[in-house]
């Protein structure tokens, strides 16, 4: 079985930069780029790569439209970010060098020279200011909420002033919140004018989106001529497309269908942990579920390893909402081990010896076997669960906004989303003063080690209070035809930078 496990593909892409350094945190650190002229690996410069995915963006507006499908398509390909980050949070320069003041309240960005947008406009500080202003009113509002002012004292400098320190801000500036658009850009739903190595070519709505190489790219141009994002609603059709040779690779292929590629020398399978915690959310404000014993019983009633086996092993066991590549990760999977007897005892202690009935509202985009598995495991300890699968839009309305549920399940793909557990209004309605305190301190502390330690403590406390069950961490399973290299293998479902892809000529 060819199965290259590459969980942390270093983001030292484009072999150029890497002068990086300076820690992901370090106050006063100056991050600069040192461009070297190392050439990209030789490949077929005329190659047009077709990559298969599951979820198509609803529109291309990166300011207002939520969803990882959009980041996956646009970030790093069309739009570039102010800084870059590795999975474990190390920050390096992107479109700008970042300097953080001693008191951590002033972020000074020096925009690189010679960068141009696809329409030929040069990148200036006012593009950055304009974009950040848009982002602060759009989808990224919460992540940028500590920003007080954004100013451009000159054409190359942007100064961001914060109301209080925010240890995640630099990381967020490497994600969607740090994407830079051309000032005054309109029709963002259908067009995208960025500085990236690819230019938007054509969108066949409901089918595919094609990006072509930006030959005027400010760095080394990409080594392939085009990348097409082809979307599949039916997993069998996706697997057939791979077998037919219609697509060169497929990201997050259905684990049920991987087997046919496993012993085949014509294909390469990669997988590794993502940011996607598959989370069995509980309504912590519910009378029954507000009792920690009940939540703990639900946790111990579910054999997570059994579920991972259903995913044919393409998933990672976790015991807290932290992926293993984070600095504050610790293995908490044995805190509440699978133990149906313990679960029954806890339920009895909580006064539910005769059983318990709970509603379970789940979006219809996850494998039904996973949902059925949870239902049957809970039935085993005397919890009768009525499963209702709904469309995602219905889920947002019913569960996320109206909190009309007992149990639910959703894949939380956002990186560093542990702060959601500090928000008592988030849909789990989990209100733990101590957790809020720890995570609040972590976000503002001056000391990098303390930052990591506080988050570790918070994660441990969250795991103990069991506001949700982290069923498993999704692995990205990518199947590619042999001869293709350089494609993203870390969290490719959330971000698919096509820049480094090469095709054997």
């Amino acid at each position, binding site marked *: 079985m060819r199965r290259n496990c590459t969980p942390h593909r270093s983001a030292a892409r484009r072999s150029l930069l890497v002068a990086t350094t300076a820690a992901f945190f370090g106050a006063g650190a100056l991050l600069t780029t040192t461009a070297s002229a190392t050439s990209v690996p030789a490949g077929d410069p005329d190659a047009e790569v077709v990559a298969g995915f599951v979820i*198509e963006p609803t*529109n291309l507006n990166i300011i207002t439209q939520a969803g990882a499908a959009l980041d996956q398509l646009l970030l790093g390909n069309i739009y570039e970010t102010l800084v870059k980050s590795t999975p474990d949070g190390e920050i390096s320069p992107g479109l700008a060098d970042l300097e953080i003041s001693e008191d951590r309240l002033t972020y000074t960005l020096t925009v690189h020279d010679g960068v141009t947008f696809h329409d030929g406009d040069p990148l200036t500080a006012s593009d950055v200011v304009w974009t950040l202003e848009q982002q602060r009113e759009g*989808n990224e509002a919460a992540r940028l909420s500590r920003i007080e002012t954004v100013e451009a004292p000159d054409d190359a400098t942007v100064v961001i002033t914060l109301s209080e320190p925010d240890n995640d801000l630099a990381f967020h500036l490497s994600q969607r919140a740090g994407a830079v658009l051309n000032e005054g850009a309109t029709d963002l739903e259908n067009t995208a004018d960025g500085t990236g190595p690819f230019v938007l070519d054509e969108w066949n709505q*409901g089918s595919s989106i094609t990006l072509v190489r930006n030959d005027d790219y400010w760095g080394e141009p990409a080594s392939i001529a085009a990348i097409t994002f082809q979307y599949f609603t039916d997993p*069998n059709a996706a697997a057939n497309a791979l077998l*037919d040779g219609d697509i060169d690779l497929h990201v997050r292929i259905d684990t049920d269908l991987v087997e046919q590629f496993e012993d085949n020398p014509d294909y390469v399978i990669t997988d590794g942990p993502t940011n996607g915690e598959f989370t069995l959310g509980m309504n912590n404000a519910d009378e029954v579920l507000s009792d920690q014993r009940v939540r703990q019983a639900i946790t111990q009633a579910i054999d997570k390893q059994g579920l991972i086996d259903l995913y044919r092993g393409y998933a990672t066991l976790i015991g807290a909402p932290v992926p293993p590549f984070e600095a504050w990760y610790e293995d908490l999977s044995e805190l509440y081990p699978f133990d149906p007897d313990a679960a029954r005892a806890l339920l009895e202690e909580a006064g539910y010896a005769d059983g318990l009935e709970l509603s379970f509202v789940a979006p219809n985009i996850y494998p039904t076997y996973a949902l059925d598995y949870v239902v049957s495991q809970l039935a085993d300890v005397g919890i009768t669960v009525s499963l209702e699968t709904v469309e995602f839009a219905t889920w947002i309305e*019913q569960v*996320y*906004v109206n909190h009309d549920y007992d149990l639910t399940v959703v894949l939380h793909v956002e990186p560093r989303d542990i702060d959601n557990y500090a928000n008592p209004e988030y849909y789990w309605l989990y209100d733990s003063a101590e957790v809020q305190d720890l995570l609040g301190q972590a976000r503002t502390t001056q000391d990098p080690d303390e930052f990591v330690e506080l988050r570790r403590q918070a994660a441990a406390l969250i795991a103990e209070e069991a506001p949700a069950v982290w069923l498993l961490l999704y692995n990205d399973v990518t199947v590619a035809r042999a001869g293709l290299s350089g494609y993203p293998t870390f969290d490719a479902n959330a971000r698919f930078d096509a820049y480094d892809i090469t095709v054997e000529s």
Partner: protein
Amino acid sequence: MAWFLVRRLGLLVLALFVASVIVFALLRLVPGDLAVVIAGTEVTPERLATIRAELGLDRPLLAQYFDWMGGVLTGDFGRSALTGSTVTSQLGEKLAVTAPLVISSTIVALAFAVPLGVYAAMRRNKADGVGLSAIGQLGIAVPQFLVAMILIALLAGSWGLPSQGFPRQGWDEFGRATRSLVLPTLTLAAAQGAILLRFVRSSTLDVLNQDYMRTARAKGLTRVEALFAHGLRNASIPVVSVVGVQLASLFAGIVVIESVFNLPGVGQMLLRDIGNRDFDKVQGTVLLISVVVLVIGFLVDVAQFLIDPRLRDGAR
């Protein structure tokens, strides 16, 4: 004839009005709206309110309905609230896949069902006639996605046909486009043909028992001659109705086939738009399809009117 057309056209307009009300109302009953799709899991109540106001989702339903109908009456079926693309352009684009599929599968279905149905009727007591009839029943019973899987397994490899997809360049790549529609066409035609076969068989049987057929035989025609000279025209009346209804339901039921074969057609588009709560686009698209379906129904009625003299007499 003129009176018949006027009456029938009036019915068409009324049906369209009712369809527009039903579509509009049903969509508003669906939980979740465009604002939650846009805001996703980053949503806050304030942001939801802002988006709803920007999109005009907070206006009274009656006002939204009349706005829409005002556009429709001037030929503007609306546009997607997510991308701004018009209903007509999008439907046109997707029909380039769906229409050929619907038409070709109907032709294939008819080409098999009519001769086989007549044959099955004429040999209703023989083993082959009964066998055909049973195969027809099976064709109706087997789910379409299963037919699709079987056809893919049997034919995709050996005939070198694509098992999924449609070329991104569309009909500019004519050969590839045609080949990619072969298996979907056969899948659709199987179920459609099976239903038609049974209708052709029973209406032929019905005709064979008529007095005028006995008279024709008495004049010295063979059974086959009598059937071709007098029977088939009569037998075709109910079949034409069924084809009309099937054409209409095909447009609605093509979702499964387009999904299994990953064809960017009307069914996939509607499914996606409903998931995205892009109601402006869905209602415009459904109304446009309704127009097509109702016009087909209208043409079928006219065809029957021309085939069947009894209807003409009744209409006078």
